[in-house]
């Protein structure tokens, strides 16, 4: 199995968003976080190798690429934004990853009734919009879609400050919540209105499974 450091170095070379869109909360998942996540999912749980994997809100493809490198047989990345998908495609071509596939769609639309994507995937990954600004509750909406699409686990990232709320809400859905790790990274000032040069974010790496 590829070593964590090696995976991280592949991910460090990926292209980032050129002009990230505030309304979609676009920012690249930091390479060290994506590497930790993907490596853990395979090393601890075997949930990537040989699997059919979805990445909801794939953006520039950090998690999609990581899943492919860790041995997923087929990865499908979904995103709403053409610009992000263009960069994601370039990242896949640069690394000659043929096992990944991209679909332009609205994530919330994927789980409409009788969707053929329902319970299709072995594993679903996501780094959802955290639901700041005008997008309150977006992260849990994305997780709900993820749980519809997966017949196995859902692995996601959420702000540590929202942990209690996440656990309470997911438990009400009859879903098992496991906080696998607390990770931190510097979010550099991405948007014009960000006053500080960078801000420390603490995130929980969470595994959701339907009971």
């Amino acid at each position, binding site marked *: 199995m590829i070593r964590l450091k090696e995976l991280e170095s592949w991910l460090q070379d990926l292209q980032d968003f050129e002009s990230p869109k505030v309304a979609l909360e676009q920012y690249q998942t930091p390479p060290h976080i994506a590497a930790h996540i993907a490596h853990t999912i395979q090393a601890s749980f075997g949930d990537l190798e*040989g*699997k*059919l994997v979805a990445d909801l809100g794939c953006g520039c493809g950090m998690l999609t690429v990581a899943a492919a490198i860790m041995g997923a*047989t*087929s990865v*499908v990345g979904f995103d*709403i934004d*053409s610009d992000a*998908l*263009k960069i994601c*495609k370039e990242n896949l071509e640069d690394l000659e990853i*043929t*096992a990944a*596939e*991209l*679909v*332009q*769609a*609205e994530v919330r*639309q994927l789980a*409409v009734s*009788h*969707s*053929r*994507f329902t319970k*299709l995937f072995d594993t679903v990954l996501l780094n959802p919009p955290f639901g700041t600004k005008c997008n309150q509750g977006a992260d849990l909406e994305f997780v709900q879609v993820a749980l519809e699409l997966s017949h196995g686990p859902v692995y996601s990232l959420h702000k540590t400050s929202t942990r209690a709320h996440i656990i309470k809400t997911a438990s009400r859905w009859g879903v098992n919540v496991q906080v696998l790790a607390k990770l931190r990274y510097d979010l550099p000032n991405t948007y014009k209105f960000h006053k500080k040069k960078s801000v420390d974010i603490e995130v929980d790496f969470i595994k959701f499974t339907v009971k």
Partner: protein
Amino acid sequence: MKLMTHNMLTSKGMKNVKEGFPLKIQAEEMRNVDIDYDRDFITRMIPKLDWKALVFAAQCVGHKEDLPDTLPEGYENDNELLKRLHHVLLEVEVVSGCLECPETQRKFPISNGIPNMLLNEDEV
């Protein structure tokens, strides 16, 4: 767009569409890629596929590759069939073209290998 993904795409989110499946493929540019054969994966995927829609899609893009019209019994033991299926599902890609809704004829464009399934506000 791989044919395995096509097997899952529908226009069902559109109002007045009952099934919206399968979408007709009008391919302009195609390409073939190499993916390692994972027999176990293919065998697991078969129950999730709509076989008729797969054969239809393969015909649309000229890649029917001797896929039988119906899935034969004992397919799990037919390695030759599984290999052909692997090729059709994962290695044949539509780079550009469009997907057409069978009920409304609405076209969903495919460019750079990516199908755009976004609906306009008035279509939902």
